[in-house]
């Protein structure tokens, strides 16, 4: 097991590093430790932010001294060791409906030809497995997903687009994901989802959290329009399932 490093990030922050790599097991330890810290501490811990391989802890140094917090957290981080995969089975999988190709996915044909596949095969591969949300960052609700098949990996655009519409689903190298709000970017766009990762008007404003799984589901234009209307009315509830034993 890799050593845990605890670093300072200003007088109110500390960072727990579990390793240097983007790795399923390291990320699982990050999320387990985040849950342990949230359950163990009260007001002295303000917020925890899990990322790929580290965890930021914001705390109030006037309520708890750094040395004491570090001591407690070391114990928790070590308790969240490897070999707990069973606890991750039963994690929720959230369906993300996508209309693939056409105007909403202008790069689908390029992704297909680049990999020597048909468009249907790209869609079949992209929708085949659930993707782990390693972390959320960059913009509200932007998921960093892991686990895409190398069969559909495609380099970024040489000339990034200045405006990518919200909901665009794309591929960049071996990464996949979707843009929650309109942004510039160089991803190959293969489709679009009508769902919003962040919706301030909804009762549960965020559709998913880091540690959840997302599965892309191919839908028709008619289904896309129907879901878009439900999202607009704040009535959309995503289909979910439970991840069966391991990944």
């Amino acid at each position, binding site marked *: 097991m890799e050593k845990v490093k605890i*670093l300072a990030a*200003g007088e109110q*922050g500390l960072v727990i590093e579990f390793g240097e790599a983007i790795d399923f097991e390291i990320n699982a330890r990050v999320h387990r430790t985040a849950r342990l810290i949230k359950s163990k501490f009260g007001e002295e811990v303000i917020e925890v932010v899990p990322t790929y391989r*580290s965890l*930021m802890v914001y705390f109030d*140094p006037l309520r708890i001294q750094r040395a004491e917090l570090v001591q407690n957290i070391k114990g928790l981080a070590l308790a969240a060791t490897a070999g707990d995969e069973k606890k991750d089975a039963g994690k929720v999988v959230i369906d993300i409906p996508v209309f693939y190709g056409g105007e909403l996915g202008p790069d689908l044909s390029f992704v297909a030809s680049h990999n020597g596949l048909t468009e249907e095969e790209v869609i079949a591969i992209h929708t085949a497995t659930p993707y782990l949300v390693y972390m959320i960052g960059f*913009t*509200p609700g932007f998921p960093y997903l892991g686990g895409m098949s190398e069969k559909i990996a495609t380099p970024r655009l040489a000339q990034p687009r200045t405006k990518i519409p919200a909901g665009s689903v794309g591929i960049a190298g071996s990464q996949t994901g979707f843009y929650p709000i309109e942004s510039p970017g160089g991803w190959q766009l293969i489709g679009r989802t009508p769902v919003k990762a962040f919706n301030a008007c909804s009762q549960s404003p*965020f559709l998913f959290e880091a540690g959840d799984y997302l599965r892309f589901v191919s839908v028709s234009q008619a289904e896309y329009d129907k879901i878009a209307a439900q999202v607009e009315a704040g009535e959309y509830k995503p289909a979910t399932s439970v991840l069966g034993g391991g990944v």
Partner: protein
Amino acid sequence: MITIVKPGLLTTIQDEGRWGYQAYGMPVSGAMDRYAYRTANILAGNAAGAAAFEMTMLGATYRFETEALIAICGADMQATLNGEPVSNWSALSVQAGSELSFQFAAQGCRAYLAVQGGVDVPPVLGSRATYTRGQVGGKDGRALKAGDVIARGQASAHAFCQPKCLPAEWIPALGDQIAIRVLAGPQGDYFTEGGMETFFSSQYVISDEADRMGYRMDGAKIEHSKKPDIVSDALCLGAIQVPGHGMPIVMMADRQTTGGYAKIGTVIGPDLWKLAQAKPGDTVRFIRCTDEEAVEALRAENSRYEQLAAWAAAGSQPSGGGKRYQMKINGVSYKITVEAIN
């Protein structure tokens, strides 16, 4: 109700920030200069966390549709009330129909206007702070426009208030040469010893790329010991990222929650107001400090707020505690407040 007559350059509604949602990628936002913002709230008799107006470089003009107690703090934007100059760092009463007008900042960059009862817009995820890039919070997630009408919250019955000016010793001095304290790390090992030395011994000039998200500086190039990129992780307030170009970028209130560049250090919270009041072209020196010094500075800042609150309440009357009457004597209107004294 308060009507925005002129919006100024960038006027937004801010509070202590939207904490608790960074794990979902939601930036914290909130007031850039927390000392000026909190002091304005104390002067206006508000509880901590009440939302206020933050103005940038060029202030706004407000018309008060009802009488109000207000407070002005931060950058000196040469405020006038119905054309008459009023003091910065002060609380004052305004009558219904009054116009309060701010000009270009003669000193500093950001001014705060607090109103008793707080600025009332619907909270989003527990905060009224405006995050313009994400169109979240404040007035429809955007900077204020001419014609916007903003509601005022209900003042607490226990709110103390009276027009008064902050004692001079509590008004921070602004200059164009800024020294800010920094705690090294978390990625100190991504820089050579020479690179660290450069960072702590050089003067940096604030570039034109300086906004609520972050301040990029120009100056001596900071040398990395390895590649400047890390696996993306969380960015705290005041984090100093150094990308491959070797220039420091200090992350401010609207910073993205995560970033992929090595961080040489973190500006301590109690010194961040100095950057919030700085402008492109101002020079900055980074001073290394210890964790003990940083925590002590935070303790000192917090006890200052306690002193301020005690001073503001001394000699004041509870604004909502008494009964108010209006009467006319010989054609002149009088407002009379009657309170029980035990």
